[in-house]
């Protein structure tokens, strides 16, 4: 755990892994060594369901520019949906 920069949030939704769709329980967000991406550090998103066991996991590892662009894009999309009256919370 060379940075230990990680946090977990509860999420609701579904994720698709090798065995098909499963109900999400948590998202782990970290900035640490990736397992696969060719960077020393990566912004990792692991969508998991701990109640289903460790293999219930959908993972992405992004470089910093991609991660920032993703955050901006998600916020922009949500703002557009909100302004269109599509979001009811």
């Amino acid at each position: 755990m060379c940075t230990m920069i990680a946090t977990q949030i509860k999420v609701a939704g579904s994720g698709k892994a090798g065995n098909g769709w499963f109900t999400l329980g948590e998202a782990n967000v970290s900035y640490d060594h990736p397992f696969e991406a060719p960077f020393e550090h990566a912004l990792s998103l692991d969508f998991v369901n701990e109640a289903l066991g460790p293999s219930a996991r959908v993972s992405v590892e992004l470089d910093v520019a991609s991660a920032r662009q993703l955050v901006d894009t998600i916020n922009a999309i949500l703002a557009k949906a909100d302004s269109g009256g599509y979001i009811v919370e």
Partner: protein
Amino acid sequence: MQYATNQYEGMIAETIVIPGHNGDPIGAYVARPLGPGPFPAIVVIHHMPGWDEWYREVTRKFAHHGYIAISPNLYHRAGHGIPEDIAVQVRAAGGVPDDQVVGDVAGALAYAVAQPTCTGKVAVFGTCSGARHAYLAACRAPGFAAIINCWGGRVTMEPQELSPNQPVAPIDYTKDLACPVLGIFGEEDFGPTPPQVALLEQALIAHGKTYEFHMYPDAGHGFFYYDRPAYRQAQAMAGWKQIWAFLAQYVG
């Protein structure tokens, strides 16, 4: 050691269960040379990505060089699956508690010295977070004859980095260290950075400890990992030479 082409060589490598911290059963991967010995031993502490294939290979590499090598699964309590799935779970939980790690490594040390073919001299090796854990164990679990710290991150820690699972910076235990230290580092590493390595060196000097550090140019974090872009062939081979020489000097 180098085997001659007409010399017998064999090893057994297998997973076993050993008592870890508080006597909890934990998995361990053991590779030991065949033959009467006696053999020195080494505890091989896995890195953040988990109890994975690279650590299996390194454990066997130590056995090939004449050491009883044991690699405890520090993530055993997090459940079982492929190593990176378990590592993700452990990372989200804030890492494994330092006290638990020390207990698990002490269990591996006890297993090693209890082997009838063991000389009783045991080193501890780790990379990345495994080197941080190796340093903690060398300071807090009596009995190690040498420690090999390969680019251990967060041995020095800022106050804001301390957490319930890691409440004390390993460098603060340096006064209790009772064995020589080999340090292998890369100049381009972001953790530990060269200034952080210098802080550790200053602590070792201040407490009168025996150590040797090797800082390699054009190398960053994890430059032994042949499966990662960080791999640096020349620096990795030079580092391994230092490891074999250090072990021969202090462990046998």
